[in-house]
């Protein structure tokens, strides 16, 4: 299967399922790479889990499901990045490096059923092109 075919299928799937909105410039079916989401999962376990358990019941809001979408539906992924890099972890805000925050955003997108692929997000600016949209 050619890359063009992959892109076409990916775009169609996204359109049909209404999972995400890609703003001009994106050319991969995934919004982030699964590899960076995996790295983000490790960072999440270390830095975030104790207060933001995706299963709920912890101090801070869950970052999965309705709790997440209540705050983030329709917003650019850059806003989530900005929030994390500005306010987290709460005992040392600003201490998580940019790359790790991008990975965290990728993991949170994965947690919320937004599609991952092979191409990683390289810079925070790329997050401006991704709109967080609740899957229907």
């Amino acid at each position: 299967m050619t890359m063009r075919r992959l892109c076409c299928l990916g775009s169609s799937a996204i359109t049909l399922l209404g999972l995400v909105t890609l703003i001009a410039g994106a050319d991969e079916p995934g919004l982030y790479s699964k590899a960076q989401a995996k790295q983000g999962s490790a960072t999440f376990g270390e830095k975030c889990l104790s207060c933001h358990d995706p299963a709920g019941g912890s101090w801070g809001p869950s970052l999965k499901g309705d709790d997440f979408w209540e705050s983030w539906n329709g917003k650019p992924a850059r806003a989530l990045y900005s929030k994390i890099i500005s306010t987290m972890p709460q005992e040392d805000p600003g201490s998580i490096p940019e790359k790790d925050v991008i990975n965290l955003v990728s993991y949170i997108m994965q947690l919320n059923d937004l599609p991952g692929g092979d191409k990683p997000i390289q810079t925070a600016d790329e997050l401006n092109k991704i709109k967080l949209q609740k899957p229907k």
Partner: protein
Amino acid sequence: MRIKIRKASTGCICVALLWGGIASLRAKEKPLLGEAVYFGGDKTLDRYSPLDQINKGNIKDLKLVWERPSLDAEYKEHFPDLTPSNYLRGTPIMIGNVLFSPDGVGLVEAFDPATGKTRWIQKPFPATLKEAAGESYRTVDFWADGKEKRIFSVRGEYLYCIDAKTGEVVNEFGEHGRISLKRDTPDHAKYFGWNGPLVVNGVIIMGGNGGGGPEGGYGDGGLQKEARPEDARGFDARTGKLLWSFHVLPQPGEPGNETWGLDSWKYVGNMAAWAPLTADAKLGYVYIPFSAPTNSWYGGHRPGINLYSDSLVALEIKTGKLMWYYQLIHHDIWEYDIASAPVLGDITVGGKRIHAVMQASKNGFLYVFDRRTGKPVWPIEERPVPKSTIPGEWTSPTQPFPTKPPAFDRQGSSEADLIDFTPELNAKAVELSKQYVLGPIYTPPSLKSDAPDGKKGTLAIPGGWGAGNWNTGAFDPETGVYYAVSRTEPGVYGMVKTDDPKATIDYAFGEAHEHRPGEARPDYRRGIGPAGLPLIKPPYGRITALDMNKGEILWQVANGDGIRNHPLLKDLNLPPLGSPGRPAALVTKTLLFVPESSDAIMGGAGVTGPSKLRAYDKATGAVVWDTDLPAGATGGPITYLSGGKQYVVVPVGGKKYGSGWVAFTLP
């Protein structure tokens, strides 16, 4: 990058005159009429203002007059990614016709009390996103000596000293205007806490770290018994020099060290005073409520009553010398931290005037002492309590029970406490409750069984989030009434033997070593009942007025509708069920202002939707006025006079709104 910071306004002669006029008064730590110097009141933390321009007769005309975001737009221009938390803790102080507060990222902002417009903003140093990023803190404090007027604030590991007129740091203080609050331990243990400083009689008092993990910073992971003790400290307000440290965990040779069995004093920590502190400047005492030790739910490694955990401690402000203490909970295994401010006020009991300190706790008790001596105003009895069944745990055979006033929130769990909105819901609640160990207050945590019909742990009421918390407590010095604002929420304490290689503790909270990202967590942790309703009867957020001259409850009301409109309840014609969360009160001449809490705050579980600000008749608890807030309250409401008009300001925040301050006044 160079950041432009607006200079303080110098054009207002009356402000300048007021600045000069208040300098000598500051030494007495007393507010001028119309000012708000500490959480809406003064350093007794009474949250009281004698203002009466806004009253029952005209409050219907109260209108929103300005909103101010929690971060000045100027910073957003310089740091586009800088985004404040929705949890704006900053309760402003108003002195010399200027509002000062930590903003949404913990930098101090000075703004106009009548318009909300910026006077100045604290500069981060260095001016980088990492340095500008931060959390909001509960408040700042003010100190003046002659012409010197300083704002003190805490941010990250630093205590800052800022010129109140310009917003510039005061270079003569500490190292270029700030001092590190890292502990003077060999490993320079981290500092972390959300409280601001308390400045009295020229001494800055810091309650300690908060949530000290093994390395001394934030985060009790639940699997370790090691942490750093979080001592209280006093610093010179002029130089920043450390004046004294009070050992919350007595060292060898100090009284109280013997209360830590098995040499646990060598490694146990936490116990920070993370509630606001209070002080009697005239008496020269500061009152410090310390919290629970490591680990919060299992203490088999620390047999003994564990001084000064969960103790109210009175220290001499100048020296840090222990004047008296009273331990309110022995050997805490419920995380019942003394988490509320020790409110100071004068009461008359049996015809005798008493300078009292009133200390609320997460456990729903209000302990009342003569603040000069530490002697209980009403007897506090040591009563037997249940013994733990967890192997190796040490249980105190008794706990202190105040004989007056009555508890301000529900205590202990039994079938009588379960919801009974309908017979069907009650039956389901009774069935659900069978998975828990029920019992009176101080029923210890219990083992969690893996068996399908086994117990999941102890259903503790109140739970570790507390009935009382930092928000609880306001006192009317004119009537002697204490207002306890509390929430009713159980906690489930099911303990399991640890098998995590990182664990250094024998038993830990049920899920502490179980949860992994993305895994489902059973929803019993807070005692959730049928259909997602609470298992326990309402109200879930309440206000209790206590006549402190008699030690009796005057009235108790639900604060807000809460889940009254739940699909299973909306047709039952129920009264207000009370909104959970942690709102703080403000007492004025005739009114009691209490907002509803925010969904953005920790401890805000169960808070949903928009919130209201209400004014209650302080004598009866009747609602006399309410209005919608753009989001729930995240700090305390305050009131003050500016330009001859009374204002009410509330810090608010929420998932959908963001965060900021809103101000109300009469037309």
